[in-house]
């Protein structure tokens, strides 16, 4: 029997998800022996012609990381969908839009103006901006079109499974791959990570007081955070209650609070809204003024609550799309 064909591909990404695959180390070499990796731009020969010539559905699984920000990425995503039985959105960018999804807080024009005109190091006497088509010394050069917003993968193509994380930890990658190879997949549309919240596997949860009540929000640099105490109990914003478990609590283990890279817990669409309701229940404030005082200490709620998920949140984009 021929080996199952698998593709691993990046779209708008940082390469960290590909590193996460490599972080499987020896296991990766074993997996590479049992499957036929037909496409992995980062690591192996990249024959897209071969991909185009494949029959629809010939690839058993495409592991796709990165968000979609330009025309080229959209093209690749659609081609992979056509050729693949299953698409796994891999990592926070593909699942949720990722940190680069915060770019939806700016317009394309604003980004272009800074990057190519206003930044202090720019020397641009000709007022050049990158163009999808340009002529240099009589030659035509082309670039993909940068879209006005960032999309999570499922806004562009149908996605069968999700594995969040920035990046997903190596063991969850192994779990996801073996679930596919052994045909032990849960129902379509599932997220291949625990349903519960991060707090449920956080050691600090045990020492948490029965009722947390905070009167002041503290920023992480302002305090020497106690290494064993719940961050929220210390007044430090930690997205643990609203974030899906599965990361191995790795940030909390280095005494840094959760920023939500695993996205919302099962059954919740908008982790930001979920966290706001958590906050409301732990604020120790009676009057409207007291509430306002604490809420005002919560600087940049969008940047905290949607660090990894703005493109799939109810906010999505600063301005309405044309």
């Amino acid at each position, binding site marked *: 029997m021929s080996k199952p064909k698998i593709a691993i591909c990046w779209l*708008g990404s940082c390469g960290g998800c590909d*590193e996460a695959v490599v972080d499987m180390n020896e296991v990766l070499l074993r997996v590479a022996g049992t499957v036929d990796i037909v496409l992995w731009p980062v690591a192996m020969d990249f024959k897209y012609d071969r991909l185009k010539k494949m029959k629809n559905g010939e690839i058993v699984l495409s592991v796709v990381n990165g968000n979609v920000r330009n025309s080229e990425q959209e093209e*690749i995503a659609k081609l992979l969908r056509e050729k693949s039985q299953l698409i796994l959105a891999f990592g926070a960018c593909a699942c949720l839009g990722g940190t680069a999804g915060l770019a939806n807080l700016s317009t394309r024009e604003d980004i272009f103006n800074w990057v190519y005109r206003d930044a202090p190091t720019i*020397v641009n006497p000709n007022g050049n901006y*990158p163009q999808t088509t340009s002529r240099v010394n009589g030659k035509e*050069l082309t670039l993909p079109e940068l879209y006005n917003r960032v999309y999570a993968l499922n806004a562009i193509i149908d996605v069968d499974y999700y594995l969040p994380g920035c990046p997903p930890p190596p063991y969850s990658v192994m779990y996801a791959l073996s679930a596919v190879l052994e045909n032990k997949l849960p129902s379509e549309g599932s997220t291949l990570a625990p349903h519960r919240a991060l707090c449920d596997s956080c050691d600090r949860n045990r020492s948490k007081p029965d009722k947390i009540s905070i009167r002041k929000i503290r920023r992480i640099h302002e305090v020497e955070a106690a290494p064993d105490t719940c961050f929220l109990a210390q007044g430090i914003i930690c997205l643990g209650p609203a974030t899906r478990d599965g990361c191995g609590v790795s940030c909390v283990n280095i005494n840094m609070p959760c920023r939500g890279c695993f996205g919302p817990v099962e059954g919740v669409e908008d982790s930001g809204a979920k966290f706001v309701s958590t906050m409301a229940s732990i604020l120790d404030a009676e009057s409207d003024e007291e509430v306002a005082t604490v809420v005002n200490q919560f*600087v940049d709620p969008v940047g905290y609550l949607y660090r990894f998920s703005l493109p799939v949140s109810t906010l999505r984009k600063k301005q309405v799309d044309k």
Partner: protein
Amino acid sequence: MTRLEGHGKIEIFLDDKGNVDDAYWQVTELRGFERFCLGRPVEELPRIMPNICGVCPSPHNIASVKALDDLYEVEPTPTAKLIRQLHYNAFMVEDHLLHFFILAGADFVIGPSAEPAERNILGVVAKVGMEIGGKVIEVRKRCREIIRYLASKPPHPEGGLPGGVSKGVTEEDRKWIRATADLCVEFCQFALELFKQIVLENKEYLNLVLNDAYKLNTYYMGLVDENNRLNFYEGKCRVVDPKGKEYALFDCHDYVDYIGEWVEPWTYIRLTHLKQIGWNGLNDNEGTSLYRVGPLARLNVADSMYTPLAQREYEAMFDTLGGKPSNHTLAYHWARLIEALQAAEHLQRIASDPLLTSKDIRNMALKLGKVGIGCVEAARGTLIHHYEADSDGRTTKVNLIVATQHNAAPICLSVKKAATEFIKGPEVKEGLLNMVEMAFRAYDPCLGCATHALPGQMPLEVNIRDHSGALIRTIQRP
């Protein structure tokens, strides 16, 4: 024509005789970190910036934290500084070694004209043996264990606070860290020996390294300490001219006076150059304002290495290459291994330092200023993070200069030179094309700096066009 290559491509144009007329390396992506970080609490930036690049996230994390030290006018405690450098050197070792064994490895270990199908990690392992292949994996894994221990996820480090770090090192953990450092030194020495055997003792390869097609007469930039020794973590920015004479020595706060970013319509990347000389286009002739960064540039810029074993290798390299500076692009690979050895030796030193396990990991005497600039030598070259903040500590301005930007114009030029030398006529042989790509890969380019990743290289599309612009041939490569 379909373009599915990912994040960069090379266009080569031939004239009516079939010789190379022009060549361009294009960056096809832009993400806008400098804009969407505005409004974010500035202390969160070390956790956001590593997403610029998941391959070299540690430099972004550390440059960002150093910018915060500067913004908050705070000096990290000696222990915090050791811990950051522990993280940093662990990163340098694994990143540099992987590049050599996977990228350069494919070009040299297997051979420049080998079949593309063999030119990957499996081919390298087949050639050097599983034992060495396994060692590469082992060293990488253990270095990344150090990063995980200090900074959460290696592809996205999350540690770092102004004036310090979030987590200290215990006496118990020092032991395995020290053992990892020893292993790294041993393996880096082995890698250098392997390089000598495979490349230097092979006349054909050595001639390739010294070939004019792989030579570029540019300026060089890199950080040096007060004794002009190579430093990855801090120091002043030194620039030497193509003949090796010091052109500038500046504090990173003055980078705007020295570095300009030129904009072209055909690429999303901005092309840095020496501002005071002014943009003189894509050339390395007399009057060029182009400079290079990264391993070879740093060795050209520094008067010496920081550690003794690396120093010996540094001297041997320049002896072989005919003195300083070396303008031979392929010598980047050699310089990279020497740097890995320095990083490994430095790891040993840090792992033995009594201060490493002190609990004094934060200096809380923060005083919020207006501007913070942090500069480090990333694996691929000088990296500058410049932030400004309002009185609430919210980000109001971000300017980033990343390593691959400095090298972007030289990469275009290197590709053109190699193409001119190796492509004659429309019939382009596979091996020759690889010779062109080698010019590109020596830089270990990392786009935006978003797209170079392990265990391979930047996916690359090369389009060759005739004088009318019609596509003759397209090749995709890892």
